[in-house]
């Protein structure tokens, strides 16, 4: 069985390895670098910057830990970017090494589907190659969406790709769109010293999260003097010699050295030859697939952002595994009911399952447990006490419907609940499990106990 994978992001490279594990002969075609957006322009590089920002924050507040520091604490953006690039390169090599170990062939170039059994590749270093294949897995991903009237210029109007490679820390930064990407960059650049303003069409920041969590994040933005202007549209933009002037729908103008546009992702389904085989796309250009990740064309699969579903790296990877299994003759079906998500703001946000409002809209009678990080000894020892754990449970059978966390290590803590939701565990199951002390995970146990009003470290409710 020969399988060609178009795109080596977290959807494609995982599909390739899975297919090779299942015995297929696999060729991967990638026109930028293996690891895709996630590794080269997304998850990993931003987390490298977040780590630098956190180190800077610790250093600035080192006195709180009883440590004296003689001298200034200064972020050196060149060194920060070097560190980030080094981290990315290690991971890139890692994926290439995995490919090698599984005998996966990688073609560095742009692939174009000629037929359901043939992909033509324009190689990066010149020349072309044709790949004969039995099955195709399309994983071409997405790119930053831009606003047509002021496209990215890489200098003053930045995409999230550009914002990962600024050689100078801007004096001031206006971020259009206070979603996941916008908020992560807001905290990073604010910590590095930029004056940051965010504008958002929706009523608040990270509006896809549980309302209580968004409200706490907005307070954290305020604490750091990141200005958020919500319920507002950008009317136009004027590029000045050394700045950008942004006109808002309420008549206000904001001048900033640079503007970061983070309004979402555009789908990469054009110019890859879909029309040659008749693969159907939707309104946003997303490739339409069934729950086996197969397109309308037999033997042609699509996974990840290009299918326009849940645009998260780990979702793409799971879809890649399902597509690979099915491509080699399996009968696997994707399950998207329990997909944890994480936002690397300060503090972090993570969630899984239903939000409070969603659960109510679906007609559940719910009970909620809450626990604040500031009631944990470990959080105080770490000096990170802000945040909340919120568990939403079905009142009738005690099953956990969802959880929402804002606080230190939220992105790691969420998985206990993800397992619980996935396996239909009850609040009692978690509350009855002994959690090690002193840890942040105790907060999960306490939040579960709070669903039944029996948390030990919560004062008696009146």
């Amino acid at each position, binding site marked *: 069985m020969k399988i060609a994978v178009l795109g080596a992001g977290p959807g494609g490279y995982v599909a390739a390895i899975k297919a090779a594990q299942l015995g297929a002969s696999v060729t991967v075609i990638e026109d930028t670098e293996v690891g895709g957006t996630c590794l080269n322009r997304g998850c990993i590089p931003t987390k490298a910057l977040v780590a630098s920002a956190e180190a800077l924050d610790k250093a600035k507040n080192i006195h709180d830990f009883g440590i004296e520091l003689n001298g200034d604490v200064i972020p050196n953006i060149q060194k920060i970017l070097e560190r980030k690039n080094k981290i990315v390169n290690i991971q890139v090599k890692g994926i290439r090494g995995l490919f090698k170990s599984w005998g996966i062939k990688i073609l560095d170039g742009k692939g174009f589907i000629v037929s359901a059994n043939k992909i033509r590749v324009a190689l990066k270093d010149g020349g072309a190659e044709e790949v004969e294949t039995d099955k195709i897995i399309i994983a071409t991903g997405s790119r930053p969406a831009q606003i047509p009237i002021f496209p990215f210029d890489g200098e003053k109007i930045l995409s999230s790709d550009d914002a990962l490679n600024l050689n100078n820390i801007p004096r001031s930064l206006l971020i259009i769109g206070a979603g996941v990407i916008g908020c992560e960059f807001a905290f990073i650049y604010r910590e590095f010293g930029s004056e940051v303003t965010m504008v958002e069409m929706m009523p608040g920041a990270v509006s896809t999260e549980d309302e209580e969590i968004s409200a706490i994040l907005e*307070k954290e933005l*305020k*604490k750091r003097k990141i200005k958020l202007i919500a319920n507002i549209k950008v009317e136009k933009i004027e590029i000045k010699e050394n700045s950008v002037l942004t006109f808002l729908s309420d008549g206000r103008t904001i001048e900033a050295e640079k503007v970061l546009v983070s309004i979402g992702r555009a789908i990469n389904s054009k110019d890859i030859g879909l029309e040659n085989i008749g693969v159907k796309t939707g309104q946003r250009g997303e490739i339409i697939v069934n729950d086996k990740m197969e397109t309308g064309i037999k033997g042609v699969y699509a996974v990840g952002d290009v299918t326009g579903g849940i645009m998260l790296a780990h979702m793409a990877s799971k879809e890649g595994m399902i597509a690979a299994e099915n491509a080699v003759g399996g009968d696997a079906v994707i399950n998207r009911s329990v997909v944890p998500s994480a936002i690397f703001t300060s503090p972090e946000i993570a969630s899984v399952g239903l939000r409070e409002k969603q659960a109510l809209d679906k007609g559940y009678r719910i009970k909620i447990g809450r626990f*604040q990080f*500031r*009631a944990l000894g470990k959080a*105080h020892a770490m000096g990170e*006490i*802000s945040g909340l754990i919120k568990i939403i449970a079905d009142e009738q059978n005690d099953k956990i419907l969802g959880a929402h966390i804002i606080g230190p290590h939220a992105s790691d803590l969420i998985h206990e609940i993800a397992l619980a939701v996935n396996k239909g565990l009850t609040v009692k199951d978690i509350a009855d499990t002994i959690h090690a002390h002193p840890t942040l995970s105790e907060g999960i146990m306490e939040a579960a106990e709070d669903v039944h009003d029996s948390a030990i470290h919560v*004062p*008696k409710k*009146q």
Partner: protein
Amino acid sequence: MNPENIKYHKEHTWVKISGKKATIGITNYAQESLGDIVYIDLPEQDTSVEANTELSEIESTKTTSSVISPVSGTVMEVNEDLAETPEIINEDPYGKGWIAVLEIEDESQADSLMDVSEYEKYLEEEAKLK
């Protein structure tokens, strides 16, 4: 220790009316219950606030809690000192720890609030309930 020239709300806030100005803070009982205050989310100027709704939010080392406005009005002034040193509220809840000044339409709206002896009796009753 609770002053006599101010009025008290059952959510443990106080208000001092002088003409159209209403200065608001939290009571000594509130600051003691909260413990060490580490942050206050100050209201923004010119926002209007209804009586019995949240004026501000306080974070202490133990908990987070709403500051309930005892009167309705528009925020004229906020205590900016609290932004950097919120612990002033612990030290001097009725003085330097004031939170905001509202401009009020109707001065009589404080009449229905408790005076100091009523508030102290209220605290005793609350303590018995616990």
